[in-house]
């Protein structure tokens, strides 16, 4: 499928740059934040009827470039041409008026309103100056139908899955007859069927002549969907390529500035030695459960062992993590830490038992955006010492520099505000904060979600190293491949219940885990 697609595309786009005028042409865009040069003279052009992928690691400047185009950020220098006319948008409203619509990773719609209201918000048809509700609902229903979406326009948006909300957001973009549709990580929380549905819609829009800017960390999806791509690295443009003319490994090495071999070196597979699983158990949960959250389960994590939690989204993976981390209180069962029965009432008691929990919701439950990298890293350590005994400045500097270097946090500036860092680097800072408290059990909930290949490999290696040094690790990820690669043992969750557990050997593969999830453990 993909090669023939690319072959077809190969004949026409060659001529395109000469005949077809780009809808959007950005040249020499530079943006600087305090302490961070986010973009440095970046060019980007979008052609009508093409899907253009914007590629780069976390922190390469993809989000910043999008926000520059949509007027969320002002640009320090450079020029934006839309249909050949110079533009400088002062906000998303102006960009939309010029035909540039955006669908963000976190769906930016209002959950308190209905689907129809969200689609038409700001563009409702009027009669005698008043919103014409029957017509508004009808138009919304029409837009949903053209997307092939079968949802009740009068239902509240919050009652639908993220995938449907994502498609509703695209319907909304099409209400304004967008010439340019920007999709920022639209697939990061969708399953395979939902991705296929989204792509069908995107292709239809492309064929109608819409220019689509697509940002995703999933290389496969980019190669499946994009006609052309622009690669960014560290705020500068590496180049523009036709998808048909670049291989995956070439793309990756351009994104990270290292060759593929180096990257493969980073991709560790944990040694499945027997003795790792035979360290002393650090936590033992027996019949641990919480009503309405997860059914009673047994789980041990030994010292020096990585236990992977596999399962679909909403299968109860996070709920298990929260019970072990004291974020939720268990109704039933017992939990022993190093053989001593313990009740974890709050995360604070868990931290006192040397259990660290890195939440999947990095923004809300993890980092503090308005503090600097330095402050974020020492936050956990300082909290443990108590605020009356501040860490000596020299020690802080030493710790901060050690982790910035060890985890390759970029920019390597301890005084940069955390919210100015990219997602992957924020994640690294969060890990650094917990590592600084020297935990004995590290619970990692989706530490690699929404993170580029390079950072992902670094985090995987870190997990493997930590276990090798005797730390107990509970590793949760939606990417089964990653779970299988890193874990000594894998617990499988389904429908808020632990259904199976298997010891990982070299012969265990993703398929085995998938089968366990599908069969619910009784095969």
């Amino acid at each position, binding site marked *: 499928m993909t090669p023939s697609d690319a072959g077809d595309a190969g004949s026409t786009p060659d001529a395109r740059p000469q005949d077809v005028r780009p809808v959007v042409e950005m040249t020499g865009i530079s943006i600087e934040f305090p302490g961070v040069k986010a973009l440095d003279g970046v060019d980007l052009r979008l052609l009508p009827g093409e899907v253009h992928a914007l590629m780069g690691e976390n922190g390469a400047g993809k989000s910043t470039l999008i926000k520059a185009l949509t007027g969320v950020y002002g640009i320090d220098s450079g020029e934006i041409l839309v249909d050949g006319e110079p533009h400088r948008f002062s906000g*998303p409203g102006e960009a939309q008026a010029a035909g540039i619509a955006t669908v963000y990773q976190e769906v930016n719609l*209002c*959950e308190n309103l209905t689907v129809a209201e969200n689609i038409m918000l700001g563009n409702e048809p009027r009669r005698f100056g008043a919103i014409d509700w029957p017509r508004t609902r009808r138009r919304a229903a029409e837009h949903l139908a053209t997307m092939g979406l079968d*949802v*009740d326009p009068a239902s509240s948006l919050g009652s639908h899955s993220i995938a449907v909300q994502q498609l509703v957001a695209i319907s909304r973009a099409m209400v304004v007859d967008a010439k340019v549709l920007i999709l920022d990580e639209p697939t990061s929380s969708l399953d395979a069927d939902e991705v296929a549905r989204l792509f069908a819609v995107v292709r239809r829009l492309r064929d109608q002549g819409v220019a689509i800017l697509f940002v995703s960390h999933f290389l496969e999806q980019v190669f499946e969907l994009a006609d052309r791509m622009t690669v960014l690295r560290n705020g500068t443009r590496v180049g523009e390529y036709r998808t048909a003319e670049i291989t995956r490994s070439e793309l990756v090495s351009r994104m990270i500035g290292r060759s593929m071999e180096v990257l493969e070196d980073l991709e560790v597979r944990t040694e499945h030695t027997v003795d790792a699983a035979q360290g002393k158990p650090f936590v033992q949960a027996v019949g641990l459960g919480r009503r309405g959250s997860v059914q009673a389960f047994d789980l041990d994590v030994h010292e020096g062992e990585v236990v992977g939690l596999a399962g679909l989204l909403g299968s109860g993976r996070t709920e298990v993590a929260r019970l072990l981390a004291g974020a939720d209180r268990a109704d039933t069962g017992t939990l022993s830490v190093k053989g001593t029965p313990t009740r974890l009432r709050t995360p604070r008691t868990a931290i006192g038992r040397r259990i660290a929990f890195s939440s999947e919701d990095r923004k809300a439950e993890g980092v503090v955006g308005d503090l600097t990298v330095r402050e974020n890293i020492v936050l956990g350590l300082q909290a443990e010492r108590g605020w009356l005994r501040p860490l000596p400045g020299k020690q802080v500097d030493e710790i901060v520099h050690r982790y910035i270097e060890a985890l390759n946090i970029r920019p390597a500036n301890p005084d940069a505000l955390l919210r100015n860092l990219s997602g992957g680097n924020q994640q690294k800072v969060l890990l650094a904060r917990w590592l600084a408290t020297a935990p004995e059990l590290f619970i990692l909930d989706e530490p690699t979600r929404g993170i580029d290949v390079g950072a992902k490999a670094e985090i995987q290696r870190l997990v493997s190293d930590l276990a090798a040094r005797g730390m107990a690790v509970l590793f949760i990820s939606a990417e089964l491949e990653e779970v299988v690669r890193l874990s000594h043992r894998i617990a499988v969750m389904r429908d808020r219940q632990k259904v199976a557990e298997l010891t990982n050997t070299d012969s265990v593969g993703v398929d085995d885990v998938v089968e366990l999830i599908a069969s619910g453990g009784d095969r």
Partner: protein
Amino acid sequence: MTTLASSRRGAPSPGRVPSVGRRLRVDRRYLPVVGTLVVFVLLLVVGGARYDNFLSVGVLANLFINNAFLIVLAVGMTFVILTGGIDLSVGSVLALSGVTAAYLLQAGVPAGVVIPLVVLIGSLIGLLVGAMVHVFEVQPFIATLAAMFFARGLCFLVAPESIPIDDPTFVALASWDTWAGGQWRITSSVVIALVVVAVAFYLLHYTQFGRTVYAIGGGEQSARLMGLPVARTKVLVYVISGTCAGLGGLLFAMFSRSGYSLTGVGMELDAIAAVVIGGTLLTGGTGFVLGSVLGVLVLGLIQTIITFEGTLSSWWTKIVIGALLLVFVVLQRLLALRRS
């Protein structure tokens, strides 16, 4: 019963378990308002059962007449709370508007000038608050707290003592009433309050401004990214609330035939209580202006019942309102929790 409901619905969406709420066909968003309506009816039943002439039309008409100013305040407050903000200044602005009206009328300024002027004072203070909230990103709580002290201080600057109003035009307007069928007496203040409610309903549900108010309450960042005029709307809700407070001051002056700088102390809290009891979430985004009207009527009914009881001190009103408020807030929490 079940078959009837499902046949009317046509094909229900697959994979959904029909719940009680679904069978009764009450949209979840209306549930809090329906709760308020139930309380209202219950209070009527209790009052009707205990006291002989409680359910007379006169009592009900008085409910509107005595609470017209509070209805207007609650309407303005609804706009602000829907955006997730709060307005603590309305009680003081109401007093300022009333005192200024009384003072100017006593000085011989014609009512035709005074009336629009005092309403504009409210709008102006609202505009100042809105500018503080928007331009300087001051928390609405703080900005309106400042406005509350500011307006209260201005009251004393205008006149520390109570000033009676005897301007003939104003008195004529205040005492105008009509019998709207049978025993229903409608005064000018009730007409004004109902017009305000109607205008607010239209604004919230039939204009882009109103939709933006709800969108901001649902998520300010989202609303901004959807390209809605967030800044303008945020300023406007405070202007509306201020205008309503100015108008409320006028209604209160008509009600009491005087202006006094100590009126309306704590009245902003009554307005907030009415809005919350009326089913509007303090977090914004959910609620209806008609719910707030119902909230005011519930507060008024409680007061009426306690007056009818005769032996109870009027402080019982506060105790009952407090208890009711608590029940409603807990109920809203439960609804929100069930949703998530």
